[in-house]
């Protein structure tokens, strides 16, 4: 395993095994993310990417293994505690509160935060469309705006590790570009990020390192260049 040199490890997942009931989804999965790194977790759907993220935030409790943040063990803690420790998940379905307005969605993130992250002005600067939609209810905005809102919610809190689950999924190409640019901004701001993406080009453009997962096991760890250069690797694990 390539150690993340020159950077301290921020998030370490060691040999976790997660189940849905009896169904063994993650088998001895191990990852490491260094401070300030953007790491991509790649793989087809149904192979355990989302389960990995859920296992980190306590949404799914792994049966064995450990998850540490800056050395602090997170395994066994509940979702609220892990979120307050600084791990923010932007889920695949975005999960905007549809009964609240955009402004209220943002406000809620500020209210529940242990410590503040970005200021509201900074958020409006980076996500100008949200400012135009403040009074709209959560279900009255477009898919792209929902994604922006979901990411903005996370950034309003003091984030140590940002987990993004398929941020470009289901979005039109132009909106995908916008989201990609936001992710680059986040990277530039030095926020440690674990990015789950099926959109390979998007992921490789922004990742420092990549992992590939298939049928619940980590099959590859390396650089984006290595993934770009290995057609057989892509064929085996990323497409058909």
């Amino acid at each position, binding site marked *: 395993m390539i150690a993340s040199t020159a950077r301290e490890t921020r998030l370490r997942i060691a040999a976790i095994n997660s*189940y*849905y*009931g*009896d*169904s*063994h*989804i993650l088998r001895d999965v191990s990852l490491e993310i260094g401070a300030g790194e953007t790491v991509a977790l790649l793989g*087809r*759907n*149904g*192979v355990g990417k989302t389960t990995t993220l859920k296992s980190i935030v306590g949404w799914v409790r792994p049966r064995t293994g450990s998850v540490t943040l800056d050395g602090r063990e997170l395994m066994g803690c509940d979702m609220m505690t892990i979120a307050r420790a600084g791990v923010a998940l932007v889920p695949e379905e975005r999960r905007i509160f549809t009964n609240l307005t955009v402004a209220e969605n943002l406000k809620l993130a500020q209210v529940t935060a242990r410590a503040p992250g970005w200021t509201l002005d900074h958020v409006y600067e980076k996500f100008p469309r949200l400012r135009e939609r403040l009074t709209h209810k959560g279900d009255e905005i477009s898919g792209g705006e929902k994604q922006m809102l979901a990411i903005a919610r996370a950034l309003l809190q003091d984030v140590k590790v940002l987990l993004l689950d*398929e941020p*470009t*999924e*289901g979005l039109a*190409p132009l909106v995908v570009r916008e989201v990609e640019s936001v992710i680059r901004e986040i990277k530039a701001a030095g926020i440690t990020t674990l990015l789950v*993406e*099926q*959109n*390979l*080009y*998007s992921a*490789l453009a922004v990742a420092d390192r990549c992992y590939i997962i298939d*049928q*619940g096991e980590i099959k590859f760890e390396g650089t984006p260049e290595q993934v*770009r250069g290995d*057609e057989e690797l*892509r064929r085996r694990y*990323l*497409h*058909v």
Partner: protein
Amino acid sequence: MTTAPNAAPEGAAFERRASLVADLRFVLLAALALAAFPFVLHPIGGYAGLATQILITSIAAVAFNLLLGYAGMLSYGQAMFYGGGGYVAAILLLRAMPQHPNLWLAVLGATLVTAIMALLVGAVTVRLYGIYFALLTLAFAQMVFFIVEQAKDWTNGDDGLQSIPNALLPIGPWNVDLTVGLPPVDLGPFGNLGDIKLWYILAAIALIAVLLFTRLLIRSQFGEVLTAIRENEERSVMVGFSAPLYRLAAFGIAGALTGLAGALRACYDGTVAVESLSIERSGQFVVYTVVGGVQTLVSPVVGTALIMYLENVLSGKTPAWRLIEGIIFVAVIVFLPRGVLGTLLNQREKNPRSIFRRALRPRTEEPEPLLRPNVEGRRAGPLSIIETSKLGKLFGHFAANHDIDFQVDPAELRAVIGPNGAGKTTFFNLLAGTIAPTSGTINYKGRDVSRVSGTERVHLGIAKAFQTASLYPDQTVRQNCRLAALARVQGPFALQVLRRSTRLDDVDALAERAMDRLELAAVADVRAGDLSHGDKKRLDIAIALATQPQILLLDEPVAGMSKDEARKTEGLIRRLSTEMTVLVIEHDMEMVMGISDTITVLHQGTVLATGTPAEIRANATVQEAYLGGHTEEEFAGA
């Protein structure tokens, strides 16, 4: 056909004899217990009359338990049948036969009326679940209460009906007066034999009859299915049972028995009051049954006896007796884990259920011959077994599936794959009938089945195995398969309340065959909940198989399995596809490429490509879809 290694060698006849003996033993024990009951009651402050009241009331409690413990239905309105039965009996005696009050007629009439009432109310209420069902039964009971209170000409309103003529029981040439007591014999501390009226003997006989009936009912074919529906309704519906009809039948039977109890009580007391229709009365049945214990046959009797005895003894001594009753009730619910409420509380209510089920259409299809011979290769007949045209499903504004044109041939093994947002599971659910399409059609063997319910489709030959194994966890592997086979053999509903399903040999044959095909014979008698994950998944497939499908839909059959189990299961699936059409959703590409005849790729809700594994591999559009819309060339260039 292999038999399980530890199957009993005796035949059906022996089993019938054995169960007859067991039933007789039960009746004998019950008779002895009830014979001793009043004498046991006497020294501790009870009296014979109380004993009679307890027995009659417990009939209603047993009926309530049929609903709550066995059918899983919490009814807060049983008083409408209890009081209803009482009022009907009283009115019959007062108006129809004041000169010759006949107990048979009064009680029979009351039971009949409450049975009809229960079926009418049930037809409307059994479509709902949980809190909605409880509230609706409560609503109906309240309606009945207030109507009876207002219909003063018939019912005397709040004052109730008094002076009901003492009904005689015609047996042969005699008219038995039940208020007559046994010969007076002093039994010391156990009271006087003469305190026991013939009423007590009638009540005891009635209770034993009801207990025996309920016992037979639970073990019957009907009872087996009712229990299965309570244990896993989702599975039961998708195996071919009609849950609403079974619920309705249970509600009707319970209502009739409750009416019987109410009628007996009115005749015994000689009066009937509006209180017998009240919420409090309905609540009492809940308390009696829960305290006694849900889900064992005689425990409602025990609960009724306990509470009524305490009421009787304590009401003289302290005004707090009802409080004590309430505390006992809460304590039982909170503290008695297994045994009493364990089963109740463990039953996880699944995703919010549909409150309305589609009405069952009459079956027009001829049933297939029971054991089809193995068919090698393709069958003659229409080329496609299932075909969809412009099939679509909208959830709100979201089009999970749209414009799907799909067809598959008999005995083909077709894999359905696709990247995120493909709509694969929605597609399967449309084919299986768990959801209805919002556009387009589905043709099965040339017939349009788009509006046919999932339950019906199973009987037509379309069976589905679930992504998360949906089993009857408290039953053995064999019983799980037998239930599915039973649905196949008997149809969606059969009112076989006295006969057991073991008399149906076809059921056993189908079940054995299904277990064999999935290599589960070794664990045939293991409780499904205790199986390993791989075995559970295979059992789920076996259950679908036991319904004798012609097309089998498998949703991620090897998900979560180890490599070895996955390979083994693949092989079993491959063998199945020689006899029937198999559609598989899978993410394990090694498996998909290895065993499929053809592959359909779904993407963003519609079909992207169909072809052999090699064709799909070579298809650039498919690769693009998986990479989020980027091609190999873009990589080379990047």
